[in-house]
């Protein structure tokens, strides 16, 4: 596999990097648009509805129209907000989500992956930075709903990050590396880690749902209680970036899940990028399925759930893995 | 088992912690007793290994004469503090975390005493410090306690940042954090990067200065001492200080044994400032705990005096310096804990820390009055007490290594300290104007504690051979 580390950077390869990054950016935007479309369509089917079908064939351009609508909306900055923080909060939230994609290996020969040694940790670190964006946005809005929403969101993301990180340790233990490419390589040699790490996989799935603030853990944005959570005061394209952040993370988390538990791009017959796409789609669809099926949890159940159930489970998984690994 | 004492104390700490949340009802003082048993066991282990050959697990933590002496010192003061706590927790409402936090702090202190790697030394220091911050502020309903804790925390964190920054330079120019390797590298380091070596030395000294409440890094001391529960105050004054001195001694002596005299002179200057300022600002204090806090600042200055001489003395002569430092620390532990014990009894009796609470103590409880007299005279450095001998020993050091000006300051400032120490004694023997006097109530535990401290103070003053003899045989410098 070709990666950046084996050659010195020249202007040419720099240009290549730039082009690749732009491609990834565009790809991401497309993926986000169509995962939103897929969400509406899929949930529609589950609920025996048709879903979007007016804009474009099968409604395929629906999301594009939504985005354009947001772009031409007036940019309202309320009077009482802290202007500077209010304006930069979406950026703070968005940038790390996009950066997180840089370590996800999309395919075997994918050249735009930063093959760094601490890939998984890097991802976790970035997802923690987004919390700052959310909190700053909520605080700067000077709105009680936004404040409570952002606090809840932060507390929840923090709480679920612990079991998430712990469950990844199990995989790292199996592979002996934090580098995501090495983890995929490890799965090529044996089985997909979803088999030995089934407990870790379950914890990861649940924790990532919480981390992404998705149903059943979507109370930061519980519209019946908190209007729209931390982005209550946001409108137009600033709001769009918060939404974008969420879905980029969904994509990134799908990529991470595929990499950690499903062998990433590896698989027989099909090309790597397709395998990756299929596996990511499985995760994304799973999320939408859960969203359509589960009711929202009560706020006083969510946080204790992360600490009292998921964390011990993750620790248990870790110990079992380590012991088995040492014994076998 | 080179880490015996540490493991025993840590295990006890966790056992107590678990038992604490299993048994949540009733009188839980047996947990403190259990902790004391653990400390005693650790003390036994430490004494068994007292003369062991220097061995280090993973080249990091182990035993050598240095570790032995300071471990015994730390464990003894831990025992005294726990005994103190045993009485304290019966009388006032402190959370049970108190007990095992002390144990964890002791683990940190032991690590500081017996580690030869900057990393573990630093971690030990922080374990001690963080536990101490919480211990000071353990009474969360008391504004004084919390404020003292915050000041201590801020200053302590500042100190550790400075210390760490200094350590990073030393690591940078030597490429190792292991003191054994560093001790060989000192001279080369110094000749290649003199400026960085000096910066590293000073930062480490200043960083430890915050923990040791050396002037001018002592600002937190009176507030933290006055705010903390009294057993914890005595903990800060003795155990924490002893461990920090041990760590400072180990770091400076191992790393900077080659660069020579003028580096260590800085320690002398700080010692001089500390002695002078510490004693003078103590003069107007009326709050007994604050006064003891300032007096402990001054005492830290006395103990720092021998540090100034490591650069001058040949390493063959260092044994005397080590001996005098550790002797003074032993002496200081007994007399300080004793003094705090009596201050605590008075505080509880009168509900005030004003030194007027001392008035009539002799009438009320002659035995406690005499005990306090002994402690105070020892702190002031009067003959036949441990304090005098400790000071005298340090003075002889200064004499021998031509640093007599420090010795002169030492004794001259102790004369200043007479003023406030004797001010106490004056009140102790003053008559209370009331006709009817009641004895100061003290539990058997407190009587035991005071008695132990009296015995310690007097024994070290009258039969110093008890301690000097074991110290004398130790091969401080080895390898």
């Amino acid at each position, binding site marked *: 596999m070709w990666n950046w580390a084996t050659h010195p950077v020249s202007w040419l390869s720099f240009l290549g990097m730039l082009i690749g990054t732009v491609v990834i950016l565009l790809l991401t935007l497309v993926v986000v648009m169509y995962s939103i479309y897929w969400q509406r369509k899929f949930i529609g089917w589950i609920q025996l509805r048709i879903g979007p079908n007016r804009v474009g064939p099968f409604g395929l351009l629906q999301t594009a129209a939504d985005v354009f609508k947001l772009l031409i909306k007036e940019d309202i900055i309320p009077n009482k907000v802290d202007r500077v923080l209010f304006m930069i909060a979406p950026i703070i939230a968005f940038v790390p989500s996009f950066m997180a994609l840089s370590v996800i290996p999309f395919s075997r020969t994918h050249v735009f992956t930063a093959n760094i040694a601490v890939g998984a940790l890097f991802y976790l670190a970035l997802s923690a930075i987004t919390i700052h964006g959310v909190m700053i946005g909520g605080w700067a809005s000077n709105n009680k709903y936004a404040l409570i929403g952002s606090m809840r969101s932060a507390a929840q993301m923090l709480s679920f990050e612990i079991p998430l990180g712990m469950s990844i340790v199990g995989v790292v233990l199996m592979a002996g590396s934090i580098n995501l490419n090495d983890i995929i390589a490890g799965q090529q040699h044996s089985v997909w880690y979803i088999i030995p790490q089934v407990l870790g996989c379950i914890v990861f799935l649940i924790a990532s749902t919480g981390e992404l603030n998705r149903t059943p853990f979507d109370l930061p944005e519980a519209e019946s209680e908190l209007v729209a959570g931390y982005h209550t005061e946001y409108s137009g394209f600033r709001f769009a970036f918060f939404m974008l952040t969420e879905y980029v993370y969904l994509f990134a988390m799908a990529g991470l899940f595929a990499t950690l538990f499903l062998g990433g791009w590896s698989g027989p017959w099909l090309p790597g990028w397709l395998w990756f796409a299929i596996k990511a789609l499985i995760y994304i669809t799973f999320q939408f399925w859960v969203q359509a099926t589960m009711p929202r949890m009560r706020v006083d159940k969510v946080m204790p759930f992360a600490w009292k159930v998921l964390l011990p489970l993750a620790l248990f998984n870790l110990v079992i893995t380590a012991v088995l690994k040492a014994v076998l | 088992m080179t880490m015996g004492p540490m493991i025993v104390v840590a295990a006890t700490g966790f056992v107590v912690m678990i038992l604490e949340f299993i048994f949540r009802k009733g009188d839980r003082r047996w947990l403190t007793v259990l902790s004391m048993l653990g400390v005693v066991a650790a003390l036994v282990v430490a004494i068994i290994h007292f003369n062991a050959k220097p061995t280090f697990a993973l080249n990091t933590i182990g035993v050598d004469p240095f570790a032995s002496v300071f471990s015994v010192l730390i464990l003894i003061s831990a025992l005294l503090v726990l005994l103190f706590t045993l009485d304290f927790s019966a009388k006032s409402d402190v959370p049970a975390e108190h007990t095992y936090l002390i144990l964890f702090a002791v683990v940190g202190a032991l690590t500081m005493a017996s580690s030869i790697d900057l990393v573990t030394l*630093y971690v030990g220091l922080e374990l001690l410090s963080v536990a101490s911050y919480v211990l000071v502020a353990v009474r969360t309903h008391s504004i004084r306690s919390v*404020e003292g*804790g*915050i000041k201590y925390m801020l200053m302590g964190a*500042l100190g550790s940042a400075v210390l760490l920054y200094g350590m990073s*330079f030393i*690591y940078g120019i*030597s*490429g190792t954090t292991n003191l054994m390797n560093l001790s060989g590298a000192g001279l080369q380091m110094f000749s*290649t990067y003199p400026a960085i070596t000096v910066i590293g030395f000073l930062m480490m000294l200043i960083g430890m200065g915050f923990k040791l409440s050396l002037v001018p890094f002592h600002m937190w001391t009176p507030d933290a001492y006055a705010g903390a529960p009294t057993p914890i105050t005595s903990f800060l004054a003795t155990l924490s200080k002893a461990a920090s001195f041990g760590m400072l001694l180990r770091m400076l002596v191992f790393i900077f044994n080659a660069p020579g005299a003028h580096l260590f002179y800085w320690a002398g200057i700080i010692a001089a400032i500390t002695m002078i300022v510490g004693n003078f600002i103590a003069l107007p204090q009326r709050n007994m705990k604050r006064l003891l806090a300032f007096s402990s600042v001054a005492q830290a200055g006395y103990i720092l005096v021998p540090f100034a001489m490591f650069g001058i003395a040949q390493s063959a002569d260092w044994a005397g310096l080590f001996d005098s430092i550790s002797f003074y620390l032993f002496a200081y532990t007994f007399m300080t804990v004793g003094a705090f014990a009596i201050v605590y009894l008075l505080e509880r009796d009168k509900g005030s820390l004003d030194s007027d609470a001392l008035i009539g103590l002799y009438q009320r409880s002659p035995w406690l009055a005499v005990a306090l007299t002994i402690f105070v005279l020892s702190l002031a450095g009067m003959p036949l007490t441990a304090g005098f001998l400790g000071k005298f020993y340090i003075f002889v050091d200064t004499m021998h290594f031509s640093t007599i000006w420090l010795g002169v300051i030492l004794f001259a400032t102790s004369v200043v300290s007479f003023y406030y120490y004797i001010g106490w004694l004056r009140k102790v023997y003053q008559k209370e104007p009331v006709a009817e006097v009641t004895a100061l109530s003290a539990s058997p535990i407190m009587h035991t504690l005071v008695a132990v401290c009296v015995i310690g103070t007097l024994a070290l003053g009258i039969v110093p051979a008890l301690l000097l003899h074991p110290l004398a045989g130790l091969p401080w410098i080895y390898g």
Partner: protein
Amino acid sequence: MGAAPFPVPTGSLLALGALLFCIGLFGALTKRNLIIVLVSIELMLNAANINLVTFSRLGVAPSLSGQVFSLFTMTVAAAEIAVGLALLLALFRLRKTSEVKDLNIHKW
């Protein structure tokens, strides 16, 4: 050592560390809000971390112990900040303030 395309000299990294340290020290000594003071102290610790990591790759005798040290430092800093925040919380409950100048009860 990795031949960095634009090699980062040791000096500038150390200068960064020193700058951070000085900013932190300045903040710790002059700021009035306790949380800012805590953050400043964290800056100082991180300055030391930068030093350690720099030296561990680019020092006189590069070794891994610098990185290990900085790992420990991070943990310690986390513990310190945890305790610090807890104490601030306790203070706020009692005094409704988090200003340095209000830490004056011991003068009364």
